[in-house]
């Protein structure tokens, strides 16, 4: 689509260029001048650290200065690929993404559609669904730690009534990840909700009126008008959500410390542990480098898929 646009605009551009190369150069310079401050910050705080990360991943570089910059070849990578703890942490990140993305998208869409129907005091619902998102992660996590508390936590005491009081929400290795997903959905669904609500409000009312005149049921209207017209929003929401889920760390670090027995430790905590608790920056860089390519691969795959869908 982008390609089509630029080829359509090309003749126009050529026309303006005829005015003289001088103005064009000045325009370009001014443009670069405006971007420069950002580019400098980008180079210092992003590009340089990423390059350093790749460099350090080939050394035993340590946080406290030892190890130096002696080139080791692929020793860190070899150690990393043979460490089951790395693979399991990578799987936990993937599992969290698989478990959290569908509810975060579907619930956001459903809430947005319901809210969009409300004419009276809509602001209240917009506010309510979005409110948890403005909480800092530490507050949201602490609230849920107490809710999940076995014995006297709110959830346990309610579930106790139907005989389900003894779930070790954060302490049972089989349940802990699900508990974190539930907390994350509550905490962040508001962001996707707002994006969907904005998308819904851009759909012209006339389409629904026309459909109603033709005798389409509300369900058919949702299926054939709302969802197709929200396609671009959905692609945006999914893209942002997958990236956000892959980055999971904070709430897990606070709520379970990656436990019980590392059953919820995401890959980011794995390299945090290696780099900052064990001081092994070289090794942690190797882990980050591998994860960098995992995210890159996921992004490229998703980009290609969604481009095809958008074009279809």
């Amino acid at each position: 689509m982008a390609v089509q646009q630029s080829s359509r605009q090309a003749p126009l551009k050529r026309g303006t260029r005829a005015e003289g190369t001088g103005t064009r150069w000045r325009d370009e310079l001014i443009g670069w001048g405006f971007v420069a401050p950002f580019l400098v910050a980008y180079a210092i705080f992003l590009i340089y650290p990423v390059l350093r990360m790749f460099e350090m991943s080939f050394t035993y570089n340590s946080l406290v200065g030892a190890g130096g910059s002696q080139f080791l070849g692929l020793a860190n990578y070899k150690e990393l690929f043979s460490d089951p703890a790395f693979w399991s942490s990578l799987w936990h990140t993937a599992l969290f993404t698989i478990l959290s993305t569908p509810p975060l998208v579907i619930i956001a869409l459903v809430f947005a559609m319901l809210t969009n129907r409300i004419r009276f005091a809509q602001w209240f619902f917009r506010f309510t669904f979005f409110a948890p998102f403005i909480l800092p992660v530490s507050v949201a996590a602490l609230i849920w730690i107490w809710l999940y508390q076995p014995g006297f936590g709110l959830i346990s005491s309610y579930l106790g009534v139907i005989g389900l009081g003894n779930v070790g929400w954060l302490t049972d290795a089989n349940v802990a990840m699900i508990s974190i997903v539930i907390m994350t959905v509550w905490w962040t669904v508001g962001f996707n909700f707002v994006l969907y609500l904005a998308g819904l409000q851009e759909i012209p009312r006339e389409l629904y009126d026309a459909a109603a005149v033709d005798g389409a049921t509300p369900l058919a209207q949702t299926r054939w008008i709302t969802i197709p017209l929200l396609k671009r929003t959905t692609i945006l929401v999914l893209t942002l959500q997958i990236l956000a889920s892959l980055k999971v760390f904070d709430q897990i670090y606070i709520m379970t410390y990656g436990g019980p027995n590392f059953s919820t430790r995401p890959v980011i905590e794995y390299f945090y542990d290696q780099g900052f608790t064990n001081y092994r920056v070289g090794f942690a860089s190797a882990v980050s480098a591998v994860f960098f390519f995992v995210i890159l691969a996921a992004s490229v795959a998703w980009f290609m898929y969604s481009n095809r869908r958008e074009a279809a």
Partner: protein
Amino acid sequence: MIGGGKQIVTFWNLFGGGDGARLGTMESKFRKGHPDLGLKSITLAWGAPYYTKLAMATVGGSPPDVAIMHISRKGSFAPAGLLEPLHPDELSRYGIGPDKYLPEVLDSAKYQGKIYAVPLDTHPFVQYYNVDVCKKAGLLDSNDKLKPLQGPDEIIKALKKAKEVTGAWGLSFYPSNDPSGNWRLFYSLYSQMGGKILSPDAKEVVLDQSKAEKALEFMANLTLDAKVLPASMDYGGSVATFQSGQAGFYWNGEWEVTTFQDAKMNFNMVPFPNVFGSHLAQADRHSFVIPKGVDPESKKRSLEFISSMLKNSLTWAKGGHIPAYQPVLDTRAYRSLKPQSNYASAAKDVVIDPVAWFSGSGSQLEIIASGIFQVVMAGQLSPTKGVNQFRNDLQKLVNTPKPI
């Protein structure tokens, strides 16, 4: 520079809650006694991130003048050259020389014969008990003191009796999602049998399979068979459970003493019981360290500050910690401090974490051990498999090239 030409001592610590408040009292005493000196005290979060920050600041050339360090962490700080060695004569000049501590306490502040830290306290793992509950359970003598408990069977029997009285639990403890709790309990039990984790040079794992299994079986017994303790209890829950009278006993470090005093509870404290043949209990010590690279003048000011803090450590003792500074320990004021002085004898019967770059409070060793033992206590891993996993993970840490 700031404060009108006043010389400033910057001090990093990791004390929150009641400890933080008592530290504040001691700091204001220092300020009053030293109007010529300024003090900038910075409290950071407890645990691994604190030590990361301290190490990075020291390497980066902008460390604080003086900082708190757990003695168990010396294995990752002293060999890395991050600490200033302290000469005995220099310390004596400030009244905090080597003769002012128990030999065991001073030894723990040394690395390869040199003193790197000035000990402030010993904080052992102890046993709290609810006097009312234990009385109803018939566990007290005629003076309302706990009858001595010894051996796994006797202890579990007592915990079961306490459970009958409370109708909830016999014991409160925090097996769940805590980076240190299970390690503290395991290391206490395992050390009571004379077990060692690492060789002195930390190059070899010397874990004793049968002793470690025995310790883990006892821990799993508490939650699985005797059911005197829920495997799902975490730290916050454990404090609340003991405070609300839902457990007769509480195993934890002594630092929660003021929590229960403030709640006007009828409780008492004794050293951790003799389960497997001795009274040894896991402990650590808070100490003052001077990071490498400070100039001699600020080192003098820091020693002045440390000296003032140690001499005022009776305030510190109220929070439960056993002062390391003997002159304070020998005062009548300390001896009449109850229940804190009841377990003062425990300061000698302690085991500090093995010395290695990956050990100590909030370290990878404690985190890994606590995680494995948690699933053992939840019944999701057998004690034998738990010990095997612990051994493998230890071996992995030992094999890892030292980052320091």
